[in-house]
C-alpha cells in the first residue's frame, strides 16, 4: 500500500503538469529518461554487489559477529565497519538491532552498526563517485564514518554503558 503512494503522487503531479503545459511535461519525461538511462551502467553493478553482500553478510552472520565481542570498544569499532560495508534495508536492519538488544548487545554497538549502515556506503561507492568524484566521495564517507562513531559513543554515554566501564 505504502509503495503505491509514491508512484501515485508522481503520476498525479505528471498529470497536473500535462494539464498546464504539454511541451514542458514531455521535456520533463525526456530529461528523466535520459538521466535514468545514463545512470544504469553505474547502478547495475551496485545492485549486483549489494545483492551479493546481502547474501554473504546476512542476518545470522551479522548477529554472530556483533553479538560475540567482550571488548566494548572493539565491538563498537567492528560494528561500524560491518555497517559501513553492509547493504541492508531498514526493515531488516532495525528488527535485527532489536534482536541484538534482546540478546544483550550494547546500545552503543547497535548504534555503531545502524548509523554507519545508514551513513557510510562502501559498496554503493561507485554511485556516489559518479556524482561527487572520487576524492569528495571518499571525504564524505570518511566524515560520515567519524560521525557514526561519535553517535555510537554518545549513545553509550546516554545509556550509561560507557561510564560503568570507565569507573
Amino acid at each position, binding site marked *: 500500500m505504502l509503495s503505491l503512494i509514491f508512484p501515485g503522487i508522481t503520476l498525479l503531479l505528471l498529470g497536473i503538469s500535462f494539464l498546464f503545459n504539454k511541451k*514542458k511535461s514531455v521535456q520533463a519525461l525526456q530529461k528523466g529518461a535520459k*538521466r535514468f538511462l545514463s545512470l544504469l551502467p553505474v547502478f*547495475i553493478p551496485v545492485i549486483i554487489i549489494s*545483492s551479493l553482500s546481502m547474501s554473504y553478510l546476512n542476518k545470522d552472520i551479522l548477529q554472530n559477529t556483533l553479538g560475540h565481542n567482550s571488548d566494548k570498544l572493539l565491538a563498537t569499532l567492528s560494528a561500524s565497519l560491518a555497517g559501513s560495508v553492509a547493504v541492508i534495508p531498514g526493515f531488516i536492519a532495525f528488527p535485527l538491532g*532489536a534482536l541484538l538488544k534482546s540478546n544483550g548487545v550494547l546500545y552503543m554497538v547497535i548504534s555503531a552498526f545502524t548509523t554507519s549502515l545508514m551513513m557510510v556506503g562502501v559498496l554503493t561507492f561507485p554511485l556516489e563517485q559518479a556524482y561527487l568524484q572520487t576524492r569528495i566521495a571518499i*571525504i564524505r564517507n570518511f566524515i560520515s564514518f567519524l560521525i557514526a562513531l561519535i553517535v555510537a559513543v554518545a549513545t553509550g554515554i546516554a545509556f550509561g554503558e560507557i561510564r560503568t566501564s570507565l569507573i
Partner: protein
Amino acid sequence: MKKKILFFLSLPVYLLFAVYSYQTDYKAGIKAVENLLSFSGHMLLFLPFAFILIGLFEVWIKRQTVEQYLGRSTGFSAYLLAVALAGTTVGGLYMAFPLSYSLFKKGAKLGVIFTYLSAACICRIPMTVFEASFIGIKFTIVRFIISLPLVIVSSALLGNYLEKKNYRLQHPEIKKEK
C-alpha cells in the same frame, strides 16, 4: 572506459555465478540471486517514478527559487530546509544523488547539498519511525541530537571549502560528453 568494460563483464560473470549456484544448489548464491531479483524488482517500480519526479523538478522549478532558498546568499535556514527536504525523500541514495545534481544545477550551494545528502541517509521519516519503534525512541533521539548538528557543520565547512575551489557535481552522462 575501464568502468564500461567492468560493467559489461560484470553481467556475464554474474550470470555464470547464478547458473552455477542453481546447478549445484549453492544456497548463498541462490539467495544472492533472489536478493537481486527482489531488489531490482523494487527498484524498477521505484526508479522510473523517481526520475519522472526529477524531470518535473527540472522543468518546473525556477532557478531563482532554488537560489533564493538554497543558494549562496542564504543563511542557516537553508540548511534546515535541506534537512526537511531530506526527511521527506523517498528511496534513499538512489533518489538523493540525482536530486542533488538537479539542485546543484539550479544554484543550490554545496554546503546545503552535502547536508541534504547526509541527512537523507539519517533522517528519512519512515525509516526513523521504524527505528524508534524497534529499538527505542531514546536511541533515535540521541542519534538525531548528535548527528544532525555534526552533519550540518561538516557539510557547511566542506561546502564552503569546495565552493572556493570551483568544485562541480557531475552526472554520468555529462562526464561522457566531456
